[in-house]
């Protein structure tokens, strides 16, 4: 297999060179290159988003002391963060992590790389549109970064940018920062719309012979559903930020009460996008875990149909739960009652998924390579994030915990514990196919254990200080008598956060070293069944040889009785006599 992979690799490189550097690495229409580009974008921004988080944490643990390393940037204060700068730091931390890290890596990176390969297509349905999608995200990123350098500073009204705080310069003193925030997200919205149309069309029309919808790997289901949510949710945000920009610059009054507008309209628009957005962030990670658990348990996924339908259920319900972000906003409390019911209901499909992951592990033959460790971390952290969500679903309890650190803990258990661990799992798992080389597993374990331990040290105590009443987005907890006795937790959290940051160093070293120096990867290093492992590593332009792969069975045929290997690729014809599985 190795020898074969070596020649295939040579072949792939050869084809790449034929197309010239610019068309291969920069303005590429190849879905795999675009996927890698999105992933690089996300990883680079991950560093910036993480550093901003550390700045925020430093201020909360040791308020109004000089932040190490910021002395040269904040010359006037010698590195001490001012309240307005603190607001800017947490606003941009969340904006970057959500829009420029998790979305590009999971939806942009894995979506592009995996969809055509795993359904047996040669490329996306619209390769040029795909390239445009990435090259629209680039100016959006540049504009967002530009905001750090304009007078008045970057947006500082929270990533939710509640109007009227965000709608008028006079309330924050932020002028072009907030404008650029709007313009950047507007452009990014267009980028994601192009991407999602492409994903949906590709999944519907470009599946290889035999790849019926219910033979699709669950990660493809998850990306397909994510694309539908993106297509329907992002335009609402895109319109919202345009309206906000008009309020700020053209004098309209969509959200400004002084001109007859309604601040709650912004919240309705924002959360109508914002709640599906949460599932946009988590569904691909769920899909990734659903790929990895069967491979390293050597077992079919437990309840394939339940898994697919629970994701469809989540997608439907995600449109009618958004009001739970607004229980105490002044929205009619009768609406709070109905949003509580739907929010409770949406917990059910998540529970179904968790139990099916457990069922997949049950009776398996489990090994623990780095991707599996990260996938298991995803499952367990998602359980905590899911359970803490029930507190918020109960409207009376939400009255108390809304806008406290309990919410911050919850969102990080879902988006870091869930999405980011899912992304790590996926990167370690598919890296051999993406770059034709293996990542170093020693560094991988260091990264995993460091991240897992420090993640919990950082985010678990946030539940405690949240229950204690600490509000989110405050600059200095010591200004409040009732928060002073629990300040030691803030120190513990910050130490954890610093550890979490340091733990990412081996990951970045591993990622970029392995790209060039890693051990050449065999075609199918994990003995996996899905189509992408049948392509060479990395697959050439247009993915397959002259003939498309032909699909004969479901995606998770591991340890099939009476078959010689413990994995039966989707392309392997079923020889079993009548009475075989329906897959």
């Amino acid at each position, binding site marked *: 297999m190795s020898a074969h992979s070596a020649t295939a690799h040579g072949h792939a490189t050869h084809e790449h060179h034929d197309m010239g550097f610019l068309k291969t690495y920069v303005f590429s229409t190849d879905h795999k290159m675009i996927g890698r580009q999105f992933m690089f974008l996300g990883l680079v921004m991950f560093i910036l988003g993480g550093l901003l988080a550390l700045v925020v944490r430093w201020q909360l643990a040791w308020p109004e002391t000089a932040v190490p390393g910021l002395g040269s940037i904040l010359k006037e204060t010698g590195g001490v963060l001012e309240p307005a700068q603190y607001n800017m730091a947490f606003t941009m931390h969340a904006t970057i992590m959500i829009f420029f890290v998790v979305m590009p890596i999971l939806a942009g990176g894995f979506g592009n790389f995996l969809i055509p390969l795993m359904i047996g297509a040669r490329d996306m349905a619209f390769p040029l549109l795909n390239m445009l999608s990435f090259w629209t995200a680039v100016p959006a990123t540049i504009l967002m970064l530009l905001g750090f350098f304009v007078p008045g500073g970057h947006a500082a009204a929270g990533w939710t940018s509640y109007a009227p705080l965000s709608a008028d310069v006079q309330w924050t003193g932020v002028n072009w920062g907030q404008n650029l925030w709007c313009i950047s997200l507007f452009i990014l919205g267009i980028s994601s719309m192009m991407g999602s149309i492409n994903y949906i069309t590709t999944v519907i029309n470009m599946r290889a012979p035999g790849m019926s919808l219910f033979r699709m790997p669950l990660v493809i289901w998850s990306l397909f559903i994510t694309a539908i949510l993106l297509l329907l949710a992002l335009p609402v945000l895109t319109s919202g930020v345009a309206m906000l920009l008009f309020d700020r610059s053209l004098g309209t009054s969509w959200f400004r009460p002084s001109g007859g507008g309604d601040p709650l309209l912004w919240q309705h628009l924002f959360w109508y996008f914002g709640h599906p957005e949460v599932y946009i962030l988590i569904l691909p990670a769920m899909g990734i875990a659903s790929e990895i658990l069967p491979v390293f348990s050597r077992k079919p996924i437990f309840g394939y149909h339940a898994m697919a339908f629970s994701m469809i259920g989540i997608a439907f319900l995600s449109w009618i739960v958004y009001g739970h972000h607004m229980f105490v906003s002044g929205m009619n409390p009768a609406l709070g009652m109905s949003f509580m019911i739907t929010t409770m209901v949406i917990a059910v499909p998540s529970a179904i998924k968790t139990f099916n992951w457990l069922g997949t592990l049950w009776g398996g033959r489990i090994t623990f390579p780095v991707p599996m460790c990260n996938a298991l971390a995803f499952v367990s952290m998602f359980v*905590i994030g899911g359970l803490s969500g029930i*507190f918020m679903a109960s409207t009376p309890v939400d*009255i108390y915990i809304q806008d406290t650190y309990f919410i911050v803990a919850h969102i990080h258990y879902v988006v870091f514990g869930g999405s980011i661990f899912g992304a790590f799992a996926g990167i370690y798992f598919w890296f051999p196919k993406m770059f034709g080389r293996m990542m170093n597993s020693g560094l991988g374990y260091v990264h995993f254990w460091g991240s897992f331990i420090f993640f919990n040290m950082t985010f678990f105590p946030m539940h405690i200080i949240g229950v204690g009443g600490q509000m989110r987005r*405050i600059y200095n907890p010591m200004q409040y008598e*009732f928060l002073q006795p629990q300040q030691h937790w803030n120190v513990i959290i910050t130490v954890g956060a610093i550890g979490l940051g340091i733990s990412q160093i081996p990951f970045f070293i591993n990622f970029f070293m392995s790209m060039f120096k890693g051990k050449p990867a065999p075609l199918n290093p994990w003995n996996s069944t899905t189509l992408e492992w049948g392509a060479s590593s990395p697959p050439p332009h247009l993915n397959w040889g002259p003939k498309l792969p032909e699909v004969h069975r479901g995606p998770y045929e591991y340890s099939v009785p009476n078959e010689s290997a413990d994995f039966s690729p989707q392309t392997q014809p079923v020889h079993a006599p009548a009475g075989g599985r329906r897959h």
Partner: protein
Amino acid sequence: MLNWWLPENVSSFGRDIDWLFHLIYWITMLTGILVFVALIVFLVMYRDRPGRKATYTHGNTTLEIVWTIVPALILVVLTFLSAPAWSKIKMSMPATDLVIQVTAKQFNWQVAYPGPDGKFGTDDDKKFLDEMHVPVNKPVKVILKSQDVIHSFFVPNFRIKQDAVPGREINAWFDAMKPGKYEWPCAELCGFGHSGMKGWVYVHSADDYVKWAAENLKGDAAPAQEEKPKS
């Protein structure tokens, strides 16, 4: 065990909130423990060892039904238990003659009592900055407004939180059961001075409140306090 995390509750409906909080705490705690024990047991029991073969199964419909129905039932019950408290706190208003108007602004709570004429917006309104005085064991109606951006009325010991939205008047209420001095922060990001935007709610015994009202709410006795500078 969470009682030392939650600040002391002194409001009537706070008991309902804390009861639900603890109920959900035990439900999620138990579920979490069950899931983690199962996870760890499976990882240990079914780890790869020489000779081990994985079970070939695609699932079990009975199990799927069980683990759909059981969480659904628990959540439905939780919804029914939560609804009355929500309805009591946010959808109804106990009869009371004590009405206080709170107008939030960057970065203060402006408190107004109607004065002898019983009306807001007249010259005899009694105004205070960042402090509110109420009697114990008496429902207080708060008319919540904002003159600039969104703020949020939060008194941790009362378990009350309600956003103040410019352009709207939102009614809220509480009934404090223990005299004392309670911190009153703003819980919604409202600008660079958000942190430190806070006041105090003073809950007086019935007698003390009468005394305080006589000194501060009648006639011209109490001059409106000057705005204090914010750091």
